[in-house]
């Protein structure tokens, strides 16, 4: 077992990112798509903090902290939009929200 190094955290964040990407591309419920977006944001934050530790600088940690705040703001606005979609279409299936399509 090698010593826990930078590569372990990079592999972990790559796996989290690809799972979130799969969730965004596959799921039909809009709230589950938002959960996938949160997975991607967590993967990016984990990557930033890992680089900050193994570089000795502080910029990764600050970037990640502002990223957490922005993820909270984005989740609030996205859920408000999803509630509006439910009020208009009576469903949150992303395949059925296509009135803007030709």
């Amino acid at each position, binding site marked *: 077992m090698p010593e826990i190094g930078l590569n372990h955290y990079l592999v972990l964040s790559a796996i989290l990112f690809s*799972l979130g990407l799969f969730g965004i*591309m596959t799921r039909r*419920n809009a709230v589950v798509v*938002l959960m996938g977006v949160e*997975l991607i944001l967590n993967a990016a934050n984990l990557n930033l903090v890992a680089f*900050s530790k193994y570089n000795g600088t502080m910029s990764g940690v600050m970037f990640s902290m502002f990223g957490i705040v922005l993820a909270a*703001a984005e989740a609030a606005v996205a859920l408000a939009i999803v509630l509006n979609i439910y009020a208009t279409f009576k469903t949150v299936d992303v395949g059925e929200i296509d009135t803007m399509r030709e």
Partner: protein
Amino acid sequence: MENLDFGTIAYQAIFYLFAAIIVISAAMVVFSRSIIYSAFSLLFTLFGVSAMYVYLSADFIAVAQIVVYVGGILILLLFGVMLTNRITQERLLTDVFNLIPSLIIMLAVLGALLYTFLYRAKWHTGEPRTTTVVEPIGYEIITNYVLPFEIVSILLFVALIGAAYIARSEKKVSLGK
């Protein structure tokens, strides 16, 4: 073998335990057929990522993750699940159409990322930081990162006002006559 004492073994074993918790919970978020299972698996994923932040000596970020993500965003997502589905309905529509291209794209992205991280990139690693991160964050916020800090607070304010306005319940028709 180097010093294979109990401390090193426990350190690595708990790291792999938390990594397994993160990966398995994230897989359950994405592959589960029930929305409630997805939401609660996301809870375990966020706690696992918070534990990883503790391993990375970023204790303030770990606690901020629990307070903001688990205590804020996850509750918001659970409210979204509650308000946009009928309570007795837990089945989702099947995801047959997008499954194979999504699987190919996901494996391609994962392979490209892992190949780049492990074989092609030469990271400049310096001295690892081992101290607590609370005081450096406080110092950086008021010296080097003042502008992002203030702008982010204004942005949060605007975003929350906007979200509350968009999601209000009593809407009059506001377009045209």
